[in-house]
């Protein structure tokens, strides 16, 4: 497990991280979300051993963190903007990484296979498309089979197909690993990650499992569509927080958005009430808040 406690990082007078604390667990993908300049990249750079920090504690599997090469052996890291040695051939680069970690040839072959790099193995990295460059970095990061994978915006700049393939690849890697992914793409975090941390202006504003976060920020709201111009009284179902009716004369249909104060799922009660009142129910759905909405609400952007 990665445990971060009261981590502070200053750049001169500017405090990039104001004492953040979080945990990242094995077999889980943790998303690090936040607007630009929130402190995501700084957090990953500290965890990768690239940057030092001013105060706080970091533990990797209960061992106190240091920037020593031994700690860096545990980490596979893709930095922001995916820097690579452009003049090297893919094969030379992967051989260099294998020699760095003292790995056999089979490790290179496996990473080529896992990241589908066969087609470009003899090409210069500088001539590759963004998608392939990302795969080369991923191959580099996973080759030593590290316990920790830190990925800073791994699908940034990729086309939808490349992004999908990269996401699938990352998702398949989480067994026995701690993966932390920093991303701007909230749908990606929602699809890929188990745990979510939202950083804003150097502070963690939300953290927890994806379901917890969504549940915590969701309201118990329902969208109901019934035929005709009707108003229903739901008061005997639960404690109502708000209710809105919209009648569309063109299709002779009323849409009702009702929000209850309690958390209990009330769909069954609502349906029973509508049917009991002799109305025709066309549609009912529980409103589900997305990470985008939570993110906008919290970061104000």
């Amino acid at each position, binding site marked *: 497990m990665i445990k971060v406690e009261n981590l502070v990082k200053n750049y001169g007078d500017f405090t990039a991280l104001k004492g953040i604390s979080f945990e990242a667990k094995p077999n889980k993908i943790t998303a690090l979300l936040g607007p630009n300049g929130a402190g995501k990249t700084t957090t990953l*750079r500290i965890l990768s*051993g*690239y940057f*030092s920090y001013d105060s706080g504690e970091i533990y990797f599997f209960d061992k106190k963190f240091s920037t020593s*090469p031994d700690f860096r052996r545990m980490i596979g890291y893709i*930095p922001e903007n995916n820097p690579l040695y452009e*003049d090297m051939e893919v094969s030379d680069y992967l051989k*260099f*990484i294998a*020699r760095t970690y003292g790995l056999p040839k089979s490790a290179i072959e496996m990473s080529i296979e896992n990241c589908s790099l066969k087609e470009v193995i003899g090409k210069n990295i500088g001539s590759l498309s963004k998608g392939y460059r990302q795969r080369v970095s991923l191959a580099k990061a996973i080759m030593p089979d590290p316990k920790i994978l830190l990925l800073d915006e791994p699908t940034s700049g990729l086309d939808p197909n490349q992004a999908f393939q990269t996401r699938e690849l990352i998702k398949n890697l989480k067994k026995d690993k701690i993966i932390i992914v920093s991303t701007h793409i909230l749908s990606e975090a929602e699809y890929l990650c188990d745990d979510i941390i939202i950083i804003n202006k150097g502070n963690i504003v939300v953290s927890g499992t994806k379901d917890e976060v969504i549940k915590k920020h969701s309201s118990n709201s329902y969208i109901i569509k019934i035929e005709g111009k009707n108003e229903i009284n739901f008061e005997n179902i639960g404690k109502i927080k708000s209710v809105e009716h919209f009648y569309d004369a063109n299709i002779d249909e009323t849409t009702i958005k009702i929000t209850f104060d309690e958390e209990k799922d009330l769909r069954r009660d609502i349906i029973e009430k509508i049917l009991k009142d002799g109305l025709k129910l066309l549609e009912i759905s529980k409103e589900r808040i997305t990470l985008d909405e939570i993110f906008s609400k919290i970061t104000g952007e």
Partner: protein
Amino acid sequence: MNIENIKTLTAKEIRHYLNNPPAYILSSFFLLICGYFFAQPLFLINQGNLNSLNDITPLILTFFIPALGMRLVAEERKTQTIEVLLTLPYSEEEIIISKYISAAIIITGGILLFFPYVLTLYFLSKPDSGHILGSFLSLIILSLSFLSISLYSSTLSSSQITSFITGFAISFFFYLCGKITMFLPLAIQNFFSYLGIDMHLANLSRGVIDLKDLIYFFSIIFLFLYFSIIKIKSMRLK
């Protein structure tokens, strides 16, 4: 420090030099210019020695070595691959020493390419072999000293031009120190004379290997390598 790590990094750096044109272009220019200063006394005044070359080469090296070494760290900073390198399991010492060794191999190789020129002296005259060997040794050790300075300059900026200018300025300072002593107050003349390369190089190029001179050059090499390591370590603190 792990020798295997140094070997791996050195091989990568040498491959970079061999896969890119600057090392070839600079070596060619170096050989061309040195060839001119070698051939001039040979053909014009029938003098078969390396004196003329020994006089001019230090100045040439103040330009060529920073040009060859400016990329060592500056390029990694510019392309951000320094983040890749510093997050791989290498120590800062291994990174700096490997970069130094790789450039030192390229430079020494470049200087040894000059050897066929010198062989012509043996066909045309009977040169003093001690003097020839001393000249080569002085050339190599001076290059390695300037390389250490250039490597340090390269850690100071992400701009290769800035690194080159800094490397050239520091190297030129050491070149100049021994030459301006006559304009300095008597009290500091000896100090500047010792600080400059002239005094130490004169002995070596004559084939006289004095421990004092070797200590001088190795001090420059180790001091600037140490500064480079400190600078790379400080990058983690930014």
